[in-house]
């Protein structure tokens, strides 16, 4: 109990917790504790040594504590969450926010990469198609000159049958059972 009072006093005086009106040195006897519990919680009052019996107004003590909350916390190596002054709710510092939200930056990067990829693929596709068109027009000219006869089998030019598809004859497979057998 004594140590709590002395702690309280040390802190109050060390940090110049002197009211504007009182300009006096606070003695340890000015800080009175009561209702100390096992919980390490207590009530305290600060007496005014000039006027013997009266206590410093609660609102002044509250204002003083509010002003110096941070320093009080650090004296005890505690924080607002672990050292609680009843009726003095702390204002919590807002989190630091950067000027541009981080997510927009990442979004911008991904967007640029994607659009660059799309443009690249489209441009190379157009170039490839132009080359193919040029080549096919060249082969067409050659064909006209040579007049290659195209063998026709049952109304279907042989070359157009995709021989890579191998053993399945696409002409017959889907249709063979549709027709009456001869």
């Amino acid at each position: 109990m004594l140590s709590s009072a002395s702690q309280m006093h040390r802190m109050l005086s060390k940090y110049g917790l002197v009211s504007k009106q009182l300009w006096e040195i606070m003695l340890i006897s000015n800080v009175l504790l009561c209702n100390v519990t096992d919980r390490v919680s207590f009530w305290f009052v600060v007496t005014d040594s000039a006027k013997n019996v009266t206590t410093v107004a609660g609102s002044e003590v509250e204002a003083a504590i509010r002003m110096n909350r941070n320093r009080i916390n650090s004296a005890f190596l505690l924080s607002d969450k672990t050292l609680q002054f009843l009726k003095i709710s702390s204002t919590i510092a807002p989190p630091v926010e950067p000027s541009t939200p981080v997510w927009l930056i990442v979004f911008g990067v991904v967007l640029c990469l994607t659009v660059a990829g799309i443009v690249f693929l489209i441009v190379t596709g157009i170039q490839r198609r132009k080359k193919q068109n040029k080549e096919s027009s060249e082969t067409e000219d050659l064909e006209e000159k040579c007049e290659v006869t195209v063998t026709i089998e049952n109304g279907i030019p042989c070359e157009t049958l995709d021989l890579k598809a191998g053993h399945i004859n696409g002409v017959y497979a889907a249709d063979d059972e549709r027709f009456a057998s001869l």
Partner: protein
Amino acid sequence: CEAQFLPNPEERRIPNMEKSRPLWDNPLQFVFACISYAVGLGNVWRFPYLCQMYGGGGFLIPYFIMLVVEGMPLLYLELAVGQRMRRGSIGAWKMISPYLCGVGVASVVVSFFLSMYYNVINAWAFWYLFHSFQDPLPWASCPLNGNRTGDEAECARTSPTQYFWYRRTLNIAPSLEAAGALQWEQALCLTLAWLLVYLCILRGTESTGKVVYVTASLPYCVLIIYLIRGLTLHGAVNGLIYMFTPKLEQLANPKAWISAATQIFFSLGLGFGSLIAFASYNEPSNNCERHAVVVSLINSATSIFASIVTFSIYGFKATFNYESCMSKVILLLTNAFDLEEGSLTADNLGAVQGHLQAAHPQRYAELQPQLKNCSLEAELDTAVQGTGLAFIVYSEAIKNMEVPQLYSVLYFVMLLMLGIGSMLGNTAAILTPLTDSKFIASHLSKEVVSGLVCFINCIIGLIFTMEAGNYWFDIFNDYAATLSLLLIVLVETIAVCYVYGIRRFEKDLHTMIGHKPSWYWKVMWAFASPLLIISLFIFYITDYILTGTLQYQAWDAAQVKQHRGFDYPGYALAVIGLLVAASTMCIPLGALLTLARRRLRRGRARPVA
């Protein structure tokens, strides 16, 4: 014998006459594409929920039975049809029988609906991913209220992760009618998601084939990292024990079997036409039987693997919440009764509470409403599925890990890969029939068609970025694909077995693969799978009829009880009806149109003969 080779004008179209069809570079690309498509978000956020609801380890029994009876045969069927016909869904079913062109169109319509709303999930994943580059994570703590004395009211009532999801991400309206404004941040993310999808499908199989290497394998890498991290978390064992203790009495519950069947069905993505589209780019001699078995087994194994990870995360989160609940109660009691610091611990809490209640009954009674009953079971019992699991529960667990930014980035990249992989399949299902069609292919190039589809979907998808957008998302999620798919796959199976003929199909498979399918496949195709689908169909219809009015859960920030059930308004019910009708009606309409066209032609031809 010239007369023999004069089929109907539309059948005269010989498949191999135009320039050769693009192919996958190697069979591995095809397998990866199928895995990437089938392994999606449902494996991560639906299967663990079902496991938890229907008996833990015991759920695996109906799950595997359904896999064997329904999953593998139907997957094999679709792959075989696609590989054989070498066409997208519309062309493939037209070749089976001209009256079935409606089935292909129905598949395209369903895929269109799916791609409309599915990419919104990728937009959300992007949003969370971009926000993972901050310290601390934005969902780690509540923002402060106006006068900076405490947390924001809505956040303090629920939790920071829920607040971030419902307020900062969705900015959800209190009901469907209060449509609200477009959220520009979500709209931006959605646009980015569609641009990414466009980049991947731009060149067709050429680009898709390379992308699926990443989208198929990256999720597994992340899952392995999470498995190692998850199993070493404090309290993970609680979750695993909870999951794997089989509650075999659940096997008697018909809902467990129906859920298993539904899960297998939708998890493999049957009926959308994506599998047909992927298989159509195969070499005709590809062994699709082996691939079907491999893909379905990998899909199921991934579900189980993902649920192990999910349950260790659950266990960690539940233990963490339980312990913080306990410490809150301890603090409250210690402060109220001025007890010595450290005298109350988790072990003696019960005894001390009883003692305090007896000694100071009045004070204790005053305190009663603030004292929560902390129970680990209750925390584990909160079964969550869907977006709730993926974005709320997981982010809550991540924020409590060390280096949360790293795990957060990994996790949301994984979600993105799973989502993009499924989107590739969806868009392939839409684009393959369009690019196969002579009319469209002659007028527009592949890039333009893909771009148009992406653009239209993106514009329509902006609906889901409005304040009430999540409610519309749920409507699409629940009704756009469920009933229609069952019908489509049923018609597909019956068509192949009875219209095309199972003997003819056997012969085709023999030509393609080299051996005929065994009796197991034939029995499943002809009897087991159709019967199962019919029973699922009947169950769904009776369920809809019995529940009467359709309801949805609204998030109400102002109330203490956040989720409130509302009836859908009239126009929402109309949209639901439209969604179901638009796809299912295509099947009979297609048949009728073909019938009408044939009658007309025969009518025209008769006077000549």
